[in-house]
């Protein structure tokens, strides 16, 4: 009897809580519904249509994919697109990592200034920024004028892959810095002090304590930058030459100039699948720090 009373006391609130949770779950769905709807309508549906058309035009079959893999220029450009994106990711990481670290280490006022420096370029149109790079990078541009003034031989920057990587890295840098910063600011800097007090050199303390803890930010930033870089269009078009043409330019050409939606669609699908494969390959890497962390 007594146990029953206890039981009922126990279960009644539990049922209520469960009910509330279920109620909340129902409400939660409606909270995400607008975003979900937007994604389905603006992303899912067009993607499905593009995929469909890559198989259905001009007739049903694999012809567009056969064309893609049977045309050397497509494969060259696909490979180049991934290579350029990887370089951009690396440059962003090298430039962004120390920057994000400094953001966590300075006072609030300085931090605000640093955040502004990252965000202000966001408010300037990408075309304007890219044209500014044209002026800086061209043969008679600012950078080469300085190089010539100090007596060195000028370097070819514009219409080269180097120029494209520099321009893209500048545009994409905030996407690296912000995730890095959001992870780094949660790292307790006293852990570094602890490592130092236990006899680790600064380099070792960084490599074994700080770096592993910051890796989630590195992966998040790298993935965002890499994926955004894959689809870049304006920057490579304006800063690059023929040998830095990226896949988006070829897609644009098929669709806009030749009205070849099938081939354009196939190129998009290939790029998408290649990206997924690469992410799947990179996924185990991002789980690494947790394992090593728990082992130690």
């Amino acid at each position, binding site marked *: 009897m007594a146990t029953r009373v206890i039981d009922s006391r126990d279960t009644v609130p539990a049922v209520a809580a469960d009910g509330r949770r279920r109620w909340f779950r129902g409400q939660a769905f409606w909270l995400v519904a607008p975003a979900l709807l937007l994604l389905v309508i603006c992303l899912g549906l067009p993607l499905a249509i593009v995929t469909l058309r890559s198989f259905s035009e001009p007739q049903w079959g694999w012809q567009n994919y056969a064309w893609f893999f049977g045309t050397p*220029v497509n494969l*060259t450009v696909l490979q180049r697109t991934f290579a350029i994106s990887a370089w951009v990711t690396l440059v962003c990481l090298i430039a962004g990592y120390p920057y994000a670290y400094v953001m966590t280490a300075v006072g609030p006022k300085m931090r605000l200034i640093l955040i502004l420096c990252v965000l202000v370029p966001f408010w300037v149109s990408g075309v304007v920024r890219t044209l500014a790079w044209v002026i800086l990078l*061209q*043969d008679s541009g600012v950078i080469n004028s300085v190089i010539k003034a100090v007596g060195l031989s000028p370097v070819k920057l514009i219409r080269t892959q180097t120029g494209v990587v520099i321009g893209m890295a500048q545009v994409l840098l905030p996407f690296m810095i912000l995730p890095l910063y959001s992870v780094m600011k949660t790292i307790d800097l006293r852990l570094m002090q602890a490592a130092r007090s236990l006899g680790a050199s600064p380099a070792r303390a960084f490599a074994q304590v700080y770096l592993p803890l910051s890796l989630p930010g590195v992966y998040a930033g790298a993935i965002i930058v890499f994926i955004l870089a894959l689809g870049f269009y304006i920057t490579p078009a304006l800063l690059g030459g*023929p040998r830095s043409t990226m896949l988006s330019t070829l897609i644009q050409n098929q669709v806009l100039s*030749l009205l070849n939606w099938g081939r354009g669609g196939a190129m998009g699908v290939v790029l998408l699948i290649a990206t997924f494969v690469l992410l799947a390959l990179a996924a185990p890497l991002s789980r690494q720090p947790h394992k090593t962390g728990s082992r130690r």
Partner: protein
Amino acid sequence: MKTKIGQAAALGLLMITTAALAQSKPVAGEVAEGSLKGKTLTFVSYGGIYQDGQIAALKEFVDKSGVTLLSDGPTEISKLQAQVESGNVTWDVVDTGDFPPYVYCGKLFQKLDFSKIDTSNIPEGQISECSVPAMNYGVVLMYNTEKYKDNPPKSWKDFFDIEKFPGSRALEGSGDLSGGMIEQALLAAGGSVENMTVADIDKAIEKVRSLGPDTIFWKTGADSQQLAESGEADMIAMWTGRAMTAVKNGAKYTPAWQDWLVVMDQMTIPIGVKDPDAAHALINAYLGKSAQETLAKTTSYTPIHKDAKPEVDEITAAFMTNTPDKLKLGYQQNIKFWVENFEVANEKWNALMAGN
């Protein structure tokens, strides 16, 4: 009673014949007063100074006919295709590049009714079944006068001769097929443009490739202008409008007019527009003498009315392509060949553009 009927009949007959006459003999630039009141037309072009100038040229037409003229753009054939396929065409008159009206005639663009358009003042050989020219311009060889002081290049042959004329080259790489340029490259490679074949395209592209790895393919007109103003390339194949602006801005470049490539924009009417008659009326008005003069004055492009005499400054006049001496030197591409081989030619040209 009888006479009254007779008078009415005579009057009616007179009205019908006048109307018929008016219809059978349209005059470029003219439109009946208030004839399009309450109607709306959407004109689509490439934006910027160019479209502003076109709208300015159409002001008289708008004022007189009472039409509401909307402006949209930039022209994208893929967008037009989407409209035609979905049966909801909102673009009434579309300004396109050289080839689309030939490639998509009867598919995206309707065959024009030339009883409604006065084409008598358009330069020879520029009218197709689905289009009339929107304006004329050219691709002209511009060379750096400081680089080639005493021995300037005179033709595209010199442009493609890297041994006799060392230096860097720039040509159009906007993605559109440049048939005229490929033909000139073929001629420079010792080929013939008579009975061209697809293999000749490869030969021509090989010639372009022989210009070396430093060859610049500019993407936009502004891009080419920047190249001239900063002196980045020694010879540049440029649109005449951009060449003029560069010279005005102090670029030390001079044109070699031999075989300048004749290019035009096209005026078209998509299939499925709600009021084809109104669209035809717009084109007919656009072709008028004073409309063309306004266009030339505001955009510096060459008018396509033979008698148009726009008042322009000296440099602009120097780059107008409709003077008799320049018309004599102009080179017309083999549109038929490029339309027939549109896809394969594009593929080959774009492979070059993509560094392959």
